[in-house]
């Protein structure tokens, strides 16, 4: 194999490691916001997912149970967000931020309480690898297409789009706005939880207290950059992952660790996110009712 082909293949492998957690979380963001609920709590939901996936996998010795636990943990925290923002019409941004803060401290506490560690959990059983990558990686490859298909071809997708654009119109057409939104938010949490599980039991094989290290916010950015579409968001995630791959190889090439410049390199993908969001401003359009609470008797 020629050196160039080898380099490209390595890059592809690295991409298939870095992109899936982002893709899953970003799809979660798309699902929630398409239905009209801002989900800034993706980061926290990923964190819950990552921790509970690892904890259950370690406890039972079965990574598949860990996977289920990760999705459930994300979905449960999302159900709280749904309850606050839909039932009680709390501000969706504040509710999401609160969720992130709760996840930050609660998981840190649980890590110490259960595993007696402030840094990392013990090694967890890992999901089996298919073609050298975790099963979740391949899920992240298929899911954007599936979600695109759901949005464009199914009655459910049509209703989700309608509810996110003009909930009252959907309600007068007989669609149950709040139920559908709750379903989307909870599904969003399950996806973010799976994204978190990918980090812990898919890639690293243990939980790290720093997880997900801002990837939930990156996913949010990818969702916006991808114009609230599954395929666009997935493409944006691949792009961000590519930036991460480049960052790592640059960091190695320039011996950043020796020069104490590691932090600077680590910031590169995030700085790129900022740049892209600034450049894409004005050309993207959120679902019209995104973040607007729905009041059935509103006048």
């Amino acid at each position, binding site marked *: 194999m020629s050196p160039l082909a080898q380099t490209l293949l390595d890059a592809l492998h690295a991409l298939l490691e870095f992109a899936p957690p982002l893709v899953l979380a970003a799809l979660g963001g798309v699902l929630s916001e398409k239905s009209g609920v801002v989900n800034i709590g993706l980061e926290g939901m990923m964190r819950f997912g990552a921790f509970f996936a690892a904890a259950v996998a370690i406890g039972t010795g079965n990574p598949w149970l860990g996977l289920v636990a990760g999705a459930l943990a994300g979905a449960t925290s999302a159900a709280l967000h749904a309850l606050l923002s839909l039932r009680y019409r709390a501000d969706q941004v504040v509710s999401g931020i609160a969720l992130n803060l709760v996840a930050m401290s609660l998981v840190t506490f649980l890590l110490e309480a259960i595993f007696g560690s402030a840094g990392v959990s013990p090694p967890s059983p890992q999901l089996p690898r298919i073609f050298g990558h975790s099963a979740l990686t391949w899920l992240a490859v298929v899911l954007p297409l599936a979600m695109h298909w759901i949005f464009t071809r199914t*009655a459910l997708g*049509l209703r989700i789009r309608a509810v996110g*654009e003009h909930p009252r119109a959907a309600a007068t057409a007989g669609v149950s706005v709040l139920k559908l939104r709750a379903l989307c938010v909870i599904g969003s949490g399950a996806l973010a939880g799976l994204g978190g599980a990918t980090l812990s039991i898919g890639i690293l094989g243990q939980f790290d207290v720093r997880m997900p290290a801002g990837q939930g916010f990156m996913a949010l950015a990818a969702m916006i950059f991808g114009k609230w579409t599954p395929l666009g968001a997935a493409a944006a995630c691949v792009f961000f992952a590519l930036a991460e791959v480049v960052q790592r190889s640059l960091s190695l090439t320039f011996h950043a660790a020796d020069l104490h410049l590691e932090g600077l390199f680590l910031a590169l993908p995030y700085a790129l996110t900022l740049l892209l969001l600034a450049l894409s401003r004005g050309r993207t359009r959120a679902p019209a009712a995104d973040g607007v609470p729905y009041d059935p008797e509103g006048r």
Partner: protein
Amino acid sequence: MSESTQSALELRGIVKRFGGVAAVEDVSLAVAPGEVLALIGENGAGKSTLIQIACGLYRSDAGEVRMNGALLPAGEPSAAIAAGLGVVYQHFMLVGPLTVWENVVLGREPRRRGVGAALGLVDRDRARGEVADCAKRAGLAIDVDAPAESLSVAAQQRVEIIKQLWRGARVLILDEPTAVLSSSEADELLRTVRGLAAEGRGVIFISHKLREVLRVADRVAVLRRGRLVMTAQATETTAEALAEAVLGAAARSAEGKAVLGVAPTRAATTDARAPSPGAAAELIGRPPNLLQEADTKSAPRLVARDLVCTDNRGRPALRGLNLELRAGEILGIAGVDGNGQTELAEVLTGLRNCAGALLLDGEDGLAPHGWARDPALARARGVVHLPADRHRLALCGLLSLEENLSLGHQREEPWAHGMFIDRAGRRARANELLAAFDVRPADPLARAGDLSGGNQQKLVAARELSDLRARLVIAVQPSRGLDFHATSRVHSALTAARDAGAAVLVVSLDLDELRALADRIAVLYEGRVAGLCAPDASDAVLGPLMLGNTSAAATIAQTGAQQGRAQTEASRG
């Protein structure tokens, strides 16, 4: 239609209160199959609330709704839809980015057979076909694949009607359907409504326009302050009798004085010579017009030359528009919706960029840092604006009435003192304005968003037309969605501003409104002025101009002016 036949829709003893205030008080109504029942009343009379209860969006505090004799569960829109009740709302319930057919089938999507059904797959071909068929049968022209937001207002309304028909509506409720239509579009709609009734559907037709109601309805019901005050066969009543029922006999006799009382401070000095037509006169005819000789000879207040701009989607909106407007005149802008009216108003108020020349008393607004480059500069030069969309452009719904009134003047006496708000001064001035423009409730601390549409418009008029610097008034659809009462007040305020020496530009889709208000009418077609007419120009003259046929209009204007005028008079009677 007699009451004895089985009713398609029946409301019995409906009561609805909002925070203790009764919006609807013991109303019973029924519509029979094949019957058109018109429901009229002022803003806030309870028409919309009644509709929301009928279709299950609101729960009533008492009373029941029956379809074909069967009781409908309260607060369940899907049950009302299933029973065959269809509502076309005043604010359309269309999801903008979805296509026409998607909007129509939303919530009841035809599924594919077999495995597809289990997956919830929409049978797109069947859905498109059914929607197209349904439109064709009802004689409604529509492109089923167009996104709803790309359609004209009239076409969106057709989509709403198709939506209800496709869902098998046996009773259709149309909430002020003609408020947003031009007169030819409204005629078309009235024909459609008669056609729907002829097929055996019951129709409830809500409107402010009495003549239209008498043309389309079999029976008329009048609501006033939440109560049903009159029902009559359309053939056995008159516009005058209906107007009296709507306004209330006592209110109506007081109307003339009330209109006189609309006194923006500056106009107060000219009140003596201001025309003060009664509400009924405004409804039916045109107010006396003071043509001011001196003003017509003076230099124009506003000159627009070769204005070119694009709309929100980047398509050409104004394509070389030329216009002159003198102080002390009202220029009406007529035209089919979407021919540049919105953009013209936005350009004149500094809300939209534009190329060309725009002179206000000789000062070019389109020069770098010119007045039309910035809404604040435009306002400082005395350009005031009554926009069509008051919720979005004119008012902050969550702020109080006094706060809304101060917007734009918030740095000036008596609203402010130095860098602080002058609370006492603001309260006093707000009370003055609320009283002068008869805004109800006249509570300076009420929230603007809680007012009815008519009172919101009066609030905007109070702020804009009381501006002492007002030299150019831009009013877009000033009476859209307003009842007679509010319309006549807003109209009087506009004529008062004109008589006090402002140049007034009124954009409206309602030719009768323009005829009642304007001194001259300019017809816009595809971003240019297709023609200038006298205010008494007939439909035969204005119609072809609105469709861009200038030569036909000119011929009619020359040869048939007398005849056209006669027609206009006839149509008014």
